[in-house]
Every structure is written in structure tokens, then in C-alpha cells.
């Protein structure tokens, strides 16, 4: 072992000791002091009730399948619509000017309104037209609300990806005789999409959580199901169960997105 390696090993050991000690101290404080608070017993009974959790958890998982289902058809629709909006906003030909205006208005409106409000307006408003079954289903219109809102954000991310492709790539492609459209499709978009994968991952994670907003217009997905159990058991633990299920999905997904982001930073430098 070299002198330097010895020194660094010693330093590492020291940092590890300090980290472990301080973590232990914080955990000990929580374990000792939180149960000493006057309301702890009550909170424990109504939020962290083991029996209720064991009872309701499998059914919450069942309800979570509805979230996954809504997510699974919304996400591809968002990707496609988002890309189309991004392209519409960057359209250069004067004949497509109306598309640019439409794209700009679309992103302004759907980014400017809270998701829950869009879900309410579309989810209650459109079935209110008296459409026949199955066209009055809240699944359809609720999903549409999510699709419209998320497409607006996703479109902006695609646009930033398009901007991130260096001008010299366009010059090179044009110099070969490719048309603007071919340059976009064959050269710019493939690179742009690759550049924004990590950011779009974060949008997917946000969407996964926002699917729960549809509970307000009908579908009994996990959040709504937890609410039903809360009423039945007079206990808040089902909400904690729902939160646990979300975390099981979102923590690995978030970690993965962070990993992709860090990898991209490394590759660029």
C-alpha cells in the first residue's frame, strides 16, 4: 500500500464512523422522543395499525392495477401527442402557421391550469353532454385530461431536446441535400429524444402519481379504495398502505431516472 492509499483508507474509515454515529444518534432521538409526544398513541393506532394494514393491503394492491391500467394507455398517448405538439410548435412553413398557434395555445392552456381542474372540467363536462355508454366513462375522459395536461409538459421537454442538438448537425445534414423534414426525422429527432429520456422518465413518475386524481371523478383506484377502507375501519392506515405501494414503484423508478441523468452528464463531459 502506498503512503497516499494508506492515508485515504484511513480518511474513508473516519468518514464512515462519523456517518454511522450521526445516523444512529438521529434514529435514537426519533425512537425515544416521538413516542414521548402526548398524541403518539393515538397516531400510532390510527395511522400505523398493523392489523388494518395486513387486512387491506392485498385489496389496495388490486386497486393499484387500475392505476397501472390508466397509466399504461395514457403514457404512450402522451408521448405521441407531446411529440406532435413539439413539432407543430417548431413548424417553419407558413402554411403550417395555424399549427404553431395551436401548439403554443395548447401548451399555455394545459400548463397553466391545475391538473385537478382539467380532470374535473373534462371528466365531468364531457360526459355531461349526455353521451351514450361507453362514451360517458370517466376512464376515457379522465385519461384524456391527463393526456392533454402531460402532453403539454412533455412537448416542452421534446422541444428543449430538439434545441439541444447542435446546429452543426443540421448544417451537415442539409449540406448533403436532405430536406428540412428529413433532417428533422433522421438526424435531429433521434438525438433529441435520446437527450431527453431522463427528463421524460421524471414525467412518467409524476404521471404515475397523478393517475390518482381520477379518483375524484369516479374510478376506484388505489387512493379512492384507501378512502373506502378508511371509512369502513375508521382508521387512516389504508392511506399509509397506499403510500407504501406508490413508493415501491416510484423509488426505484426515480433512482433509475437519476442514474440515467448522471450517466448523460458523464457522457457529455
Amino acid at each position, binding site marked *: 500500500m502506498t503512503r497516499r492509499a494508506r492515508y485515504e483508507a484511513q480518511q474513508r474509515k473516519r468518514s464512515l464512523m462519523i456517518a454511522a454515529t450521526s445516523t444512529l444518534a438521529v434514529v435514537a432521538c426519533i425512537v425515544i422522543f416521538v413516542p414521548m409526544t402526548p398524541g403518539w398513541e393515538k397516531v400510532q393506532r390510527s395511522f400505523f395499525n398493523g392489523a388494518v394494514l395486513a387486512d387491506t393491503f392485498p385489496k389496495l394492491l388490486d386497486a393499484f392495477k387500475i392505476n397501472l391500467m390508466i397509466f399504461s394507455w395514457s403514457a404512450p398517448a402522451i408521448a405521441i401527442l407531446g411529440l406532435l405538439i413539439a413539432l407543430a410548435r417548431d413548424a417553419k412553413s407558413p402554411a403550417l402557421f395555424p399549427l404553431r398557434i395551436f401548439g403554443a395555445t395548447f401548451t399555455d392552456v394545459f400548463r397553466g391550469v391545475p391538473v385537478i381542474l382539467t380532470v374535473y372540467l373534462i371528466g365531468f363536462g364531457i360526459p355531461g353532454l349526455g353521451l351514450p355508454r361507453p362514451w360517458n366513462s370517466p376512464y376515457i375522459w379522465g385519461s384524456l385530461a391527463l393526456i392533454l395536461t402531460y402532453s403539454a409538459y412533455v412537448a416542452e421537454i421534446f422541444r428543449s431536446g430538439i434545441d439541444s442538438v447542435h446546429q452543426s448537425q443540421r448544417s451537415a445534414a*442539409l449540406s*448533403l441535400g*436532405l430536406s428540412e423534414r428529413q433532417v428533422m426525422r433522421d438526424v435531429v429527432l433521434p438525438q433529441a429524444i435520446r437527450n431527453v429520456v431522463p427528463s421524460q422518465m421524471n414525467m412518467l413518475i409524476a404521471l404515475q402519481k397523478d393517475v390518482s386524481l381520477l379518483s375524484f371523478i369516479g374510478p376506484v383506484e388505489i387512493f379512492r379504495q384507501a378512502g373506502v377502507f378508511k371509512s369502513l375501519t375508521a382508521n387512516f392506515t389504508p392511506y399509509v398502505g397506499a403510500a407504501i405501494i406508490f413508493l415501491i414503484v416510484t423509488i426505484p423508478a426515480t433512482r433509475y431516472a437519476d442514474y440515467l441523468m448522471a450517466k448523460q452528464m458523464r457522457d457529455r463531459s
Partner: protein
Amino acid sequence: MAKLSLRGVVKQFGANTVCDGIDLDVDEGEMVCLIGASGAGKSTLLRCINLLEAVEDGEIFLDGEDIAEPGLNPQAVRARIGMVFQSFNLFPHMTALENAMLAPRRVHGRSKADLVDEVEDLFKRFGLADRMQNYPDQLSGGQQQRVAIIRALAMRPEVMLFDEITSALDPQLVGEVLDVLLMLKQQGMTMVLATHEMGFARHAADKVCFLKDGKIIEEGPPEALFDAPEREETKAFLARALK
């Protein structure tokens, strides 16, 4: 008739006149080198010839046809003129072979099967037969620049423009790229180069043009321009460049 003729070409960026009335004739099979300090307007002039920049005024004749005509569709012209850039600009998401096949497929509508022999032949000729399936980031700078040349050649251009294509390379890789230019000259390619490689310009060029502030202020065969420059500005530039 010259293959390529420029008459009074003017290019402005806002109030900045970058090409200020350029006249230039390039004959079929000729190699013309543009030299001059950084900022003289060499890159801009090449980009104007390829219609990557729209000129303000003047004419550019390719086989006698004015390609600087405002409103003319530039794609057909660019398909006839190849360009290679200082920074290679290969498409990073495609292999070397895909880079070279993209434009002939899209612009000439040719199939992969129809193209592949011809393009592979180019790779072989320029010593890159074993690199066709590599992505750009797996290639050295010299190899990338040779792939960029192959990519332009795959379009079977009539004229090739080279913008300081060795300036971004490590010194030991410059030679392999300059050798490619000599091969092209032997095959009779018409070429316009912006270059800082004075030694190369001197022994390979048919004509050398010295640019300053957007004007060609002196031109002639390399021996005359390098050994007996007439203008003071040319002398001063060469004294600095050859030091």
C-alpha cells in the same frame, strides 16, 4: 467555362459584411485553396457556395447555372456539392456506414442493397473497411474526418468544399486526412479548401487565394503567391503563418 464561378458575392450578417464582392473561378478538376487569418470569411464563403447561407448579392454559377438565384430550391444544388467541416459533424446515432448511406437513400431514393457495394468500396479505398460498423465515438479524429469525406462522396458530388478539415486533429493524424485529398485530386475532383496547412497548399493546390476582411486581395499559383507575394498584407500574413 469554369465548373464553379463566383461573381461579386456579398454576404452580410447584420451590419457586418463578411464576404465583400468575391470573384472566383474554379475549373473542372482544379484544387483551389483559400488562406487567410481567422475571421477573414473563408468558412462563410464556403457555406455560401453550398447555399447554407443565402447571399445578399452577386452570382454563383455551377456549370453556368446561377445557383444564388433567390427562391431557388437549395436541396438539388447541395446534393451536387459535397461539404466537409472542421468538426466532422458525423451523426452520432448512426454507424459510419449508415452515416454514408443516409443521404443517397433519402435524396436519390436508392435502396441499401443497391448502395452497399459502392459505399463499402469507398471505405476500402480510404482504408476504413474494418471501421464501417463503428459509431463515430469509437473512431479517432482522423478516422471520423475520413468517414465525413466518404459520407460526402457517397452522394457522387461534382464539387467538394473542405472547411479547415484538419484543424481539429492531433498533428500526427493530419497526414492521413491530407492523403485523402491528394487521392481525390488525382481522381480529378473539383475542390475548394479553406486551410491553414500552408505546406499542403503550396505543393497540392492549383490556385491559392488570400482572403482578408471578406475580399480576395491576392490570388495565383502557389509558387507565385508563396514565394513572391505582391501585396504587403499577403507578405505579413505569410510571414506569420510560415513562422
